[in-house]
């Protein structure tokens, strides 16, 4: 460290004339006094504004994970199939035959609230870049969305903008959007969540990483030009050294999916050669974080000549260029001698491209602009000295365990079922997913269209497929972060199991409120611990993810929402399932025991307007036992349809199966518990399966032999959905209720 500070003193004279770094400017950059002291020490002098900006973004919550890092470190991140865990642009898993799946999920919450179309669109663009940066062709997109209550004046505009933005980007780039989830709750009125996930396919031996290597290697910039887009926070500071004219203000990032598509094709074409040493997309804090990450990981220095950066606007300052968040840009280190090859490919695809710098042996990030050195800082402290906070947290107090007998039983099951099937969280989301191209690339085997538990996307040209799902139940996480954390991981595992896949690994997007509040920190820690326990129980590691904090308005935080994206493998498409296949004459069997857990349930919320009670506990051992059995039944072709029994309980699960299979069902009343507990209880580790008559005995007796609870709960046939004396509704009426809710909302 001493060595680098003396070096910087020597170079200090060459620094551009600088504005005075006042305490206000430091504060505007989100740096604490202690953090600023570290900067002074590492530099051995005062930083200039460019350097301050760079420290500020690298040490921001977004880039440094300062509030969550120590807790994320607990996650299970390794496994037999893990090629790359957290720490790169995305996680990489092995699916055999030299194929690797690369995936990640990321949030774009705040931008989507400000400008829903562009915010959501650029979220999709960003997550795709994280995936193709590593050498994968994106093959599927998912999205996990949370909006405020339906009646809220902003909700409709936000829904239509976000959905159009996701579709507008993904459809244009030509990657199918195959699934996702959408919730509505007043807890998101002031802070919606837009989490996007991308899954890509690469050659296992051709995965690309971001560590720059070697000295004297050229650094290429490719993609769109740099403008004053979304320059991080510190607006005031940047305005101070410019005149305050309207057209110099930072602007909202606008996505250009056309350029993204060209960028994908060009990068993949170049990746087919051996020209790339390292590659990194420019995400948040664009040029800064990409160059610092590449240099830090490779243990090298980087010198950039900012005059060479393709610029969309005139008179851009170094500060603006380094902090710009213009989209559709990549940075790469190219092998010397391969410059022309790279240039030719990028020019063929009509992209802006420039050689803007070189790797060095100084360990420093040095920036030149108009003949002057405008930044000269050691790289190591940007990463190593990033704050790693141990924020105080308090455990979320437990909610009472509710007894079904103490909860009012509906006197009108027909009415209750109709209300549940058309309630915001359960109603059909067709209005949304019909705006997404789900089929492009010719490999979508199952998608939102079936209402299935997980999407199925074939590995092109083969007979195997990946299964993909995203899940979290925020009401459970709010009531009990630890159990809720277990539950969201377990639900993805269950959903992958439902289609017959072997679950492999997850990505996550941890959306929480302000971590400076100990209660919120308690939610974050609780969820992470719960998730981690489930990951370990299933041997189901976390390979990538993202944290989004400060999702709150006026002290009102969102419900804790750790969205989980799970990926599994269907080794042979001869054996997979969905909820569509129930046939006349089938018997419905419920795997897993129903005790009738109504705390934190949809029944409680939608029918009784109560949101209290402890959520259903997750018995991970049981989950594994039951899930492995269901997967085995699928592979032995014992089932016609499978559906995970979760939100809304048995009744909703069975109706969803009936709707998807387009056939009526009949359910039996319980003998051991009351009707509402039986039909609407949300006990975990359960699967509803539809089997042919000759499979009933084998399925049940094998289950008994394995100590698995399996019981006949009904039958398939006719055009009514009924429960012994309890309810009796035509499938067509239910379909209408289920389908109409969202279009009615959006057209109202």
């Amino acid at each position, binding site marked *: 460290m001493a060595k680098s500070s003396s070096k910087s003193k020597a170079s200090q004279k060459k620094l551009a004339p600088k504005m005075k770094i006042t305490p206000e400017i430091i504060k505007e950059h989100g740096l604490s006094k202690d953090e600023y002291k570290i900067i002074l020490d590492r530099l051995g002098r005062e930083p200039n504004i460019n350097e301050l900006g760079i420290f500020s973004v690298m040490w921001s919550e977004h880039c440094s994970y300062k509030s969550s890092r120590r807790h994320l470190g607990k996650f299970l991140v390794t496994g037999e199939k893990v090629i790359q865990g957290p720490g790169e642009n995305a996680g990489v898993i092995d699916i055999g035959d030299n194929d690797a799946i690369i995936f990640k999920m990321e949030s774009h919450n705040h931008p989507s609230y400000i400008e829903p179309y562009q915010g959501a669109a650029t979220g999709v663009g960003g997550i795709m870049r994280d995936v193709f940066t590593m050498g994968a062709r994106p093959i599927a997109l998912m999205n996990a969305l949370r909006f405020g209550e339906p009646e809220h004046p902003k909700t409709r505009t936000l829904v239509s903008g976000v959905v159009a933005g996701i579709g507008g980007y993904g*459809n*244009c*780039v030509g990657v199918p959007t195959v699934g996702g989830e959408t919730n509505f709750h007043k807890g998101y009125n002031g802070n919606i969540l837009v989490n996007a996930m991308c899954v890509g396919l690469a050659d296992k031996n051709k995965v690309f990483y971001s560590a720059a290597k070697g000295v004297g290697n050229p650094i290429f910039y490719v993609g769109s030009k740099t403008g004053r887009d979304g320059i991080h926070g510190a607006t005031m500071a940047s305005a101070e050294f410019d005149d305050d004219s309207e057209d110099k203000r930072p602007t909202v990032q606008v996505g250009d999916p056309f350029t993204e598509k060209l960028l994908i094709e060009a990068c993949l074409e170049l990746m087919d050669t051996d020209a790339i040493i390292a590659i990194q997309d420019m995400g948040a804090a664009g040029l800064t974080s990409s160059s610092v990450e590449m240099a830090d990981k490779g243990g090298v220095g980087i010198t950039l000549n900012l005059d060479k950066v393709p610029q969309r606007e005139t008179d851009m300052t170094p500060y603006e260029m380094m902090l710009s968040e213009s989209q559709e840009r990549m940075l790469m280190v190219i092998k010397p001698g391969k410059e022309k090859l790279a240039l030719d490919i990028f020019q063929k695809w009509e992209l802006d491209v420039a050689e803007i710098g070189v790797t060095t042996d100084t360990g420093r990030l040095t920036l030149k602009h108009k003949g002057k050195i405008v930044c000269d800082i050691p790289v190591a402290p940007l990463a190593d000295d990033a704050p790693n906070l141990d924020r105080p947290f308090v455990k979320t107090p437990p909610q009472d365990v509710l007894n079904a007998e103490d909860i009012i039983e509906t006197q009108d099951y027909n009415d209750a079922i109709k209300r549940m099937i058309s309630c915001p969280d359960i109603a059909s989301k067709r209005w949304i997913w019909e*705006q997404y191209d789900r089929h492009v690339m010719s490999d979508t085997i199952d998608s939102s*269209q079936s209402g299935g538990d997980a999407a199925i996307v074939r590995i092109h040209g083969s007979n195997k497929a990946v299964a993909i799902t995203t899940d979290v139940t925020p009401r459970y996480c709010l009531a009990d972060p630890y159990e809720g954390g277990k539950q969201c991981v377990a639900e993805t595992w269950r959903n992958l199991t439902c289609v017959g896949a072997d679950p492999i690994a997850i990505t996550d997007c941890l959306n929480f409120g302000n971590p400076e509040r100990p209660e919120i920190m308690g939610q974050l820690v609780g969820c992470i611990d719960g998730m981690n326990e489930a990951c370990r129980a299933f041997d189901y590691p976390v390979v990538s993810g993202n944290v989004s904090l400060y999702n709150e308005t006026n002290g009102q935080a969102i419900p804790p929402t750790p969205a989980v994206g799970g990926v599994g493998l269907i080794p042979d*498409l001869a054996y997979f399932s969905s909820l569509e296949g129930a046939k006349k004459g089938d018997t419905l069997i419920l795997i897993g025991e129903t005790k009738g857990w109504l705390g934190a349930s949809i029944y409680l919320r939608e029918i009784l307007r109560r949101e209290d009670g402890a959520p259903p506990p997750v018995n991970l051992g049981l989950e594994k036992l039951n899930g492995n059995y269901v997967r085995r039944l699928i592979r032995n072709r014992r089932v016609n349809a499978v559906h995970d029994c979760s939100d809304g309980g048995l009744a909703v699960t069975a109706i969803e199966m009936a709707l998807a299979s387009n056939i009526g069902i009949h359910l039996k009343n319980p003998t051991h518990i009351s009707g509402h507990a039986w039909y609407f209880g949300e006990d975990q580790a359960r699967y509803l399966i539809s089997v042919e008559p000759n499979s009933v005995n084998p399925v049940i007796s094998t289950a008994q032999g394995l100590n698995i609870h399996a019981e006949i709960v009904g039958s398939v046939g006719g055009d009514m959905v009924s429960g012994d004396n309890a309810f009796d509704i035509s499938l067509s009426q239910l379909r209408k209720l289920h389908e109409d809710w969202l279009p009615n909302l959006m057209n109202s």
Partner: protein
Amino acid sequence: MRTAVIVFPASNCDRDAAFALEKITGIAPEMVWHRETSLPKNIDFVVLPGGFSYGDYLRSGAIAARSPIVKDIVEKAGKGLAVAGFCNGFQILTEAGLLPGALMRNKGLKYVCRPQKLRITNKTSRFTKQYGAREEVIFPIAHHDGNYFADDTTLNMLEKEGRVVFKYTGNPNGSARDIAGICNREGNVFGMMPHPERAVDALHGGTDGIDLFKSILGTL
């Protein structure tokens, strides 16, 4: 038999088209970059694929329709080359003047992706012969600008000459007279908004599209 798929910047159903052609002919098609000034030799059938050529900027298909390769295709289509455009390919064909009319923003203003029922309204065309007595097919649709427009004179002429090859059952986009696909007077150039190339695989979008390819390939 040699087939070709044209690749424009941000064509994205080029792979879908290639998948279908290879599945049906057993031979991978030539993938031809839009900057080429002429098609490879001995091409019998050309597909302009779906997607968002040039991001659908300005108008869907407009910029692609002015590319060098399309000039060559227009010329060869005039001499009888079989050409089909699906989705964005259909938009390009109308923009290039090979087919009449224009494709405007969907009436509902939203992008729409769903399996779509279609009536075969000309069973003897070079693109539908194989369907025999079949009246209906289901092809996926996935578009934002699929609302077919032409003036009444043109529409009357198309109907009279049997050039309306497919119509929608349950119009998804506001197209005039429910038109989903049309051909030129000579019958060698065909365009439709739905995606027959995504309906050649039972696991994917069904198999109703196979006969469309067999029809045209069988006439070459």
